């Protein structure tokens, strides 16, 4: 054996062994904890965060689970997630719209109570809150979509006529009534959940979903011709020929309409 490879002294060997053992133990414990920590990020869709809550990832670094927001909510909307009972990360505040929605207090006491900024003190107007977005998830059961005049979600909305409007369309079932479709406008909806709470059906047809689930997004490079035109005062691309539109109705080659006539050509594959 070369002189440089002297056997380790027993103390040194022991120290290295202990350190290695400890480091390995911590790696195991740390991985388990990291697994739980990542798991805790999966906020269930029906658990909504209080107004002003930071995006979920930042929220979990900020919220110390003190419950002060819960205590200062005058409507007992909020509660702290209990281990193994509620899906949200243990001890963090949330509410379930169908149980108790947020009443959108003018002074936002929950945000004022938060000592850490997990609920962003920059939120000063409750109408700017984005706890989620209401979506009329079930047109097939929504009474208004059946042509009835329930209108409850629309009437109870604290941001009525902005966050939710009734859009008129023809009722093809009866042929001579209107359908007043409750329609949510996401940029004004605060996600308070009052509409979901008050929906008269046994299971709400309108639900507040987390924004990540409720919304799509437009591709950045999309340009809407009509908007560009309004802005520029002229078409986006010059010299386009505007061909006549084929509208249904008498005098057109649309056979489905009374008075329509056969087109003067045969399309391949139409069996003619």
């Amino acid at each position, binding site marked *: 054996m070369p002189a440089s490879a002297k056997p380790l002294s027993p103390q040194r060997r022991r120290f290295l062994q202990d350190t290695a053992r400890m480091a390995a133990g911590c790696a195991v414990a*740390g991985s388990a904890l990291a697994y*739980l920590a990542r798991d805790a990020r999966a906020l269930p869709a029906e658990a909504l965060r209080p107004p002003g809550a930071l995006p979920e990832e930042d929220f979990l670094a900020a919220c110390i689970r003190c*419950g002060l927001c*819960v205590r200062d909510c005058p409507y007992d909307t909020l509660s702290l997630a209990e*281990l193994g*009972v509620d899906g949200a990360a243990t001890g963090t505040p949330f509410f379930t719209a169908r149980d108790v929605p947020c009443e959108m207090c003018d002074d936002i006491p929950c945000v004022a109570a938060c000592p*850490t900024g997990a609920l962003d003190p920059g939120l000063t107007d409750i109408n700017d809150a984005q706890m989620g977005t209401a979506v009329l998830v079930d047109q097939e059961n929504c009474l208004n979509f059946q042509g009835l005049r329930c209108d409850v979600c629309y009437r109870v909305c604290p941001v009525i006529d902005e966050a939710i409007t009734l859009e008129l369309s023809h009722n093809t079932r009866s042929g001579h009534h209107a359908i007043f479709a409750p329609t949510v406008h996401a940029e004004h909806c605060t996600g308070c959940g009052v509409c979901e709470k008050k929906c008269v059906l046994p299971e709400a047809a309108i639900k507040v979903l987390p924004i990540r689930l409720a919304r799509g997004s437009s591709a950045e490079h999309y340009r809407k011709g009509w908007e560009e035109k309004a802005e520029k005062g002229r078409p986006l691309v010059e010299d386009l020929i505007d061909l006549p539109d084929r509208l249904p109705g008498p005098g057109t080659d649309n056979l489905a309409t009374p008075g329509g006539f056969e087109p003067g050509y045969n399309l391949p594959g139409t069996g003619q």
Partner: protein
Amino acid sequence: MSTASKAMAGREAIAVKGWLQAHKWLLLRRASQTFFLLIFLLGPWFGLWLVKGTLAGSLTLGVLPLTDPFVTLQGLVAGHIPETTALIGALIVLAVYALIGGRVYCSWVCPINPVTDTAHWLHRRLGLAKGWQPKRSTRLWLMGTVLVVSALTGTIAWEIVNPITLLHRGLVFGIGFGWALVLGIFVFDLFVARHGWCGRLCPVGAFYGLLGQRSLLRVTARDRVACDDCMDCFAVCPENHVITPALRGKGSDTPLILSPDCTNCGRCIDVCSVDVFAFTHRFDTNVSEAPATPADTRAA
């Protein structure tokens, strides 16, 4: 020492000093633990909102914010700079424990302590073997691990499983299945590892221990000359390695228990029939000269 005499630890003190005197600090400690729980429960139970929140963060009388510094530290390494209210709260708590001893939190405030104390009491009664005894430094390693995991996952990692806040929050807000974790700790301390949780694993205790390195409030073995080697203090002390240097010191060796592991629980003071121990401050290095008899110390 035989297991039988361990189970009997404190008998002599009761005989000499009376039951009350032999349980003085234990009773005060239980009172303090109850106080720190009740003060949070007055609101939800009786609508008396002196204190709102939990041990992780609270607001007293609407003005005094208190924040757990270890939770705050995890938040910081996870990448969130808290608002000033939380920072001030954490600084106040830091200052207080740095002064009176970090692990005073463990024995006078923490709601898990009665659980592990009960496990230890039963452990002694049943004369069980000490079981798995990982090094005491394990908790420091775990504390480091918690901080690393917080930084890597960007979450306040320990709060996902922390049995302390889980139990406290559970009692104040609703516990869910948190009780299972608490029961787990009890069983662990009783059957798997004596003093396993608080003494070896808990990263919160490790943090508060570091915090109290230079704290003022200390236990002294001032009358160590009177020690009759009954070993009762070693039997009841949750961190009994801290006693040896102070009690077995000779001559000018400091009689103070200076280890930051000492929780200032005062149980050694209780169970000593010859009153060797007393609370004092860290600059009081007085040692009794003449061998004091039990009668002398009590008359003093």
